[in-house]
């Protein structure tokens, strides 16, 4: 854990401690379970956007991708009665394709990421509504629902994506946490232990320089967008099974802002070239924790957004301040020696 990650981890611990102190039910197994579950769902999404932000780009479309993936999945299962495994594969391919299109438009047609993904935000949302005629759909069948094929498979998928694993008598680990663990470790390995991860950092800092070093910067950027959409796709599936109901117009709305906020709070710089997966995951947890604390402490829900905004702002300011301070200290030290 490096210095930046330590800061956000400190924040997590602080809010955690304060809430636990003020409300003794906060640390109940059930609440922890929920906190872990929601944190995992949002963190998966945020990891994806971190990749894009590290390349110096942005992805505003993830909320809509989450929505579209959830819609298409539920549509296939409920309306078309398609084999569940196949349905999952189709939606994953769709999210990969979306990422690929983003990447190609950004690198080959040279349109700015902000524009491409803003249009994506609009288009995918629209597609989902049009496909289902805006009917809400549940991916998981109720007792006497018709139209679903392979109800058993669907139910076991439901167990996989939104089930629980008993750890102790009272504590069950929600399966999304396992997804987060696997994807988070894979992402961190990719970023820090493979040459491609290094290429992403390099091009995020100096794209021309990376290209002159023989790196295929276009391909690397495309990969980043594909990863981002893919993670949003996974999150879409997780959300669909978690909520058991998908509303084409609403599912995933505004999630891009959460994800970007988590990435920034977790130490990614929107200028590119900087970021850590661990930081982003912790930051996603902090955001969920803030929501949970607001509920636990009985603060008006009207203030949720505001508190979140203030925490992010203060977090980023503190980070900026610490960086400058430590740079000064280092300089002073160097001078002494």
């Amino acid at each position: 854990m490096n210095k930046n990650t330590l800061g956000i981890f400190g924040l997590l611990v602080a809010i955690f401690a304060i809430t636990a102190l003020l409300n003794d039910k906060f640390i109940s197994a059930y609440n922890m379970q929920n906190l872990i579950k929601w944190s995992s769902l949002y963190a998966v999404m945020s990891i994806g956007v971190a990749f894009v932000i590290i390349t110096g780009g942005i992805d505003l479309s993830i909320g809509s991708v989450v929505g579209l993936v959830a819609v298409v999945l539920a549509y296939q299962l409920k309306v078309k009665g398609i084999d569940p495994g196949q349905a999952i594969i189709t939606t994953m391919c769709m999210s990969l394709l979306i990422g690929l299109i983003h990447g190609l438009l950004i690198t080959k047609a040279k349109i700015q990421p902000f524009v491409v993904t803003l249009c994506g935000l609009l288009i995918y949302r629209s597609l989902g509504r049009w496909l289902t005629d805006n009917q809400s759909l549940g991916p998981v069948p109720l007792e006497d629902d018709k139209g679903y094929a392979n109800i058993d498979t669907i139910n076991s998928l439901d167990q996989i994506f939104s089930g629980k694993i008993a750890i102790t008598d009272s504590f069950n680990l929600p399966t999304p946490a396992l997804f987060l663990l696997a994807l988070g470790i894979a992402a961190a390995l990719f970023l820090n232990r493979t040459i491609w991860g290094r290429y992403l950092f390099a091009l995020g800092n100096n794209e021309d320089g990376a290209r002159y070093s023989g790196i295929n910067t276009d391909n690397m950027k495309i990969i980043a967008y594909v990863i981002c959409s893919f993670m949003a796709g996974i999150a879409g599936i997780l959300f669909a099974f978690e909520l058991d109901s998908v509303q084409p117009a609403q599912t995933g709305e505004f999630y891009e802002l959460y994800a970007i906020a988590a990435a920034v709070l977790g130490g990614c710089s929107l200028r590119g070239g900087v970021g850590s997966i661990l930081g982003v995951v912790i930051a996603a947890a902090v955001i969920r924790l803030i929501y949970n604390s607001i509920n636990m402490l009985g603060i008006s829900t009207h203030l949720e957004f505001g508190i979140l905004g203030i925490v992010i702002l203060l977090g980023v300011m503190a980070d900026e301040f610490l960086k400058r301070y430590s740079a000064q200290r280092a300089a002073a030290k160097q001078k002494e020696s």
Partner: protein
Amino acid sequence: KTDSEGDNDSSEARIAYVTNGVDPFWDLCAAGVRIAEKEFGIGCEVHMPTKGVVDQKRIMEGLLAKGIEGIAVSPVDAENQTPFLNEVAENSKLITQDADAPKSKRLVYIGTNNYKAGRALGKLVKEALPEGGEVIIFVGRLEQLNARQRRQGVIDELLDKPEQELSSVKFDAVDAKNLTAEGSKYTILDTRTDNFDKAKAKSNAEDAITKYENVKCMVGLFAYNPPACIDAIKEANKAGEIKVCGFDEQDALLQAIKDGNAHGTISQQPWEYGYESVKMLKNILDGKQPETSFHEVPFLVVTKDNIDEFWAKKKEMAELGKQD
């Protein structure tokens, strides 16, 4: 055959049905519209504005520009939209449905008495908790009049307050906590809002279960609230311990009623909204003026006793609506 299809073609629609947002509830209403279109031989456009007042105004302006003859609308902010509704009423036949704008020049209001429906919901809670106990309310947003009326109905019923007149309901503060009254066995702990975010609705329910260990009944006022509560309770292994009473008729809620995981719900019979709106507008266009200004659509109390029958009806309606 082509003729009858032509009737339903939206370009030849004479009237329009405008909702206040996008929701499965409105899809059921649209089903009623489709049925009535056929029955009365009149084309009707259905519009679901996505983004509140602005979209609604824009869409209705567009309809007027197209020369639409009649509009049935559920105003987002009935009170303050009055001037605009009057403008619409001057250029077209305007009726309100689902939510009323009593001060406007609308010809008639078709809808549920939400306060009464709220009291009926309160009665369901009393049935579920004959011994009394702590109750918590979930709702999307409280800025809608019908949401507030509903909530007040629940509160008044539980606290044994006298029945109020729909047009002059006095509301308790939105963030009032631990509402209780002498002689009443019930406490209304809190009202949590979620801004239509389903994930938020669920985590609100989860957090309530954590925070209030003695909560005995969760009341969901918007369609997606009860299923969210049911899920949360199930995951907390408190099925049976915490009762759920709801509003509207999402399948998950109906299933839960059937399984005994929820006590009951109040259905506004949304298809009636669509059906009655089209029928009313057709009559008005044919020169038959409505007799009263409030055409009440009766709500239906759904419990285990009548769940099968109701669910069958709902499915039938949805199917019928879809065929178009």
